[in-house]
């Protein structure tokens, strides 16, 4: 069990109130915010300002690995047990394109999922508070902060219409 992270957790019914709170907290130096929502939201994404996910690197590397593996496997196996039919090449690229394509998709898809899991774990939410309403209809914001900053952070949340504000840790 991860140790609880100290900070303030707020729940919002209205998206614009949550966005205003995110902007104000970021302006006052609270950049390590965690925002919970039931569905992906472009406005929250823009307010937080994350760079584009690096999942695409996993997809690219996985796809290229699959394609290379497809080529290497078919060609090597053909020469390992050569079947000479009608004077045609032992290893022939056109029919092997199908295997290369399938493995590109297969390894590309599996590495994409691996990337999603690895990248999500890297910036884990463990120790950070969560409320079940955030997967239903509320937006949650957790601002990690020291005890002496908690009052100011709570005030920002309340000003922007938070329906519930709790101190954590």
């Amino acid at each position, binding site marked *: 069990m991860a140790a609880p992270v100290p900070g303030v957790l707020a729940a919002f019914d209205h998206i614009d109130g949550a966005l205003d709170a995110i902007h104000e907290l970021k302006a006052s130096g609270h950049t390590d915010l*965690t925002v919970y929502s*039931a569905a*992906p939201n472009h406005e929250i994404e823009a307010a937080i300002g994350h760079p584009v996910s690096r999942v695409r690197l996993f997809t690219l590397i996985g796809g290229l690995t699959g394609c290379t593996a497809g080529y290497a496997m*078919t060609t090597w196996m053909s020469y390992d047990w050569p079947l000479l039919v009608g004077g045609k090449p032992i290893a022939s690229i056109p029919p092997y394109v199908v295997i290369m394509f399938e493995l590109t998709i297969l390894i590309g*898809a599996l590495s994409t999922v691996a990337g999603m899991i690895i990248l999500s774990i890297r910036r884990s939410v463990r120790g950070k508070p969560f409320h079940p309403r955030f997967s239903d209809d509320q937006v949650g914001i957790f601002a990690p902060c020291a005890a002496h900053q908690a009052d100011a952070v709570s005030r920002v949340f309340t000003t922007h219409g938070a329906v519930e504000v709790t101190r954590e840790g």
Partner: protein
Amino acid sequence: MTAITQPGPPLTQTHAEVTRDVVATLGTPSRGYYLALFGAVGMFLVGLGTFVMLLKDGLGLAGYVHPVMWLVYITTFVFWVGIGHAGTLISAILYLFRSPWRTAVYRSTEAMTVFAVMTAGLFPIIHIGRQWIFYWLLPYPNQRMLWPNFKSPLIWDVFAIGTYLTVSTTFLVVGLVPDIAAVRDKVSGWRKKVYAMCSLGWTGSDNQWRHYTRGYLYLAALATPLVLSVHSVVSWDFAMSIVPGWHGTIFAPYFVAGAIYSGIGMVLTLLVPLRKVLKLEHMITEYHFDNLAKLTLLTGSILFYAYLMEYFVGWYSANTFEQTTFFRRAFGPQWWAGWSMIICNAFVSQLLWFRKIRTNLTALFVISIFINVGMWFERYVIIASSLSNDYIPYAWAQANPTWADWGILVGSFGWFLMYFLLFARTFPIVAIQEIKEMIPMPRRKRGGAH
């Protein structure tokens, strides 16, 4: 007559109502559900019994007669692979096109895909006769270092179907994770513990969504060419040979269009009763059925064109064997199968030009049954008619399916429906988070929606 009256997508609901309504589908099942499940298990047991007999006595029980050594099992294999295609079309291709109507129906179609491909995967194994050595199809290091022939379309198929099953299952599971988390936060007791384990610690944090949305986009981008390739590869099982009626260059697009057509037929067959049993009438509406019917009409018309082209090319080839094959499809001993295919697929789908039919549930359900029957017959006609009369007329023979063929066919429907029904009661059959994404969150101030 069950005319659907609710217009448009369900944008009037709140986020909380969406969660409530979908979680309600996971409550105590109705009597109708148990009856359907009981029927499915019964059908599966028929198939299982037949399979045990096949293991004991061999493939001689099936209707194979030389030279017709592919019959009902390969027909049914192609049928189930085709069924799977509509799911990936709706979940991946329409996702890339940002088509709004897919959200309410894509989860059920995606589940249908996974279970249909699972069903399809059984058939080559049943068909090979010595089922216990099916793994010889895979390239694994063995005593003699003997490898598969990668120039054979049958080996391409092993890779295509394996990849399709893995990727479509992955796509389904990834899409389910946020929804399982939503269910986890609504239920209690042991169910909460199970859903908590399945949700993989999902909280819907900004960081999780950031990687999730990107990853999902790339999965959709990978699944899109895959769905088009899988049935092309299946079609090459036939088109790469020189059997009359098989070696046509139109086979890949012809099979892909037919696959999507049959898949949407099955989606309609499943969704019409499912929305009633699970009380999802306000979520899966006229809007969704109308769009599914339009897609059926499009793919059905492509198929109609392919049928015409197939006959035209057969005649224009001036090849006696090719011409004879197509003549026998329409007027040979199994003319009823040939005409069932043409009437059920090419003609019945044309009824969907009428909006009144597209939005009438009873009519759609009946048409969908015709599509399922017609598409099974299409594969049967392609396989049985071509093999029964090839280039050596004295070897021609007419194969007739036996109880062992029909038993396995019935069992496959039971196997498929059993998994689908269990899934529908265990996991959200409507994508909670994607529907919520379409409903703007409430605002204190007016305007400024994204």
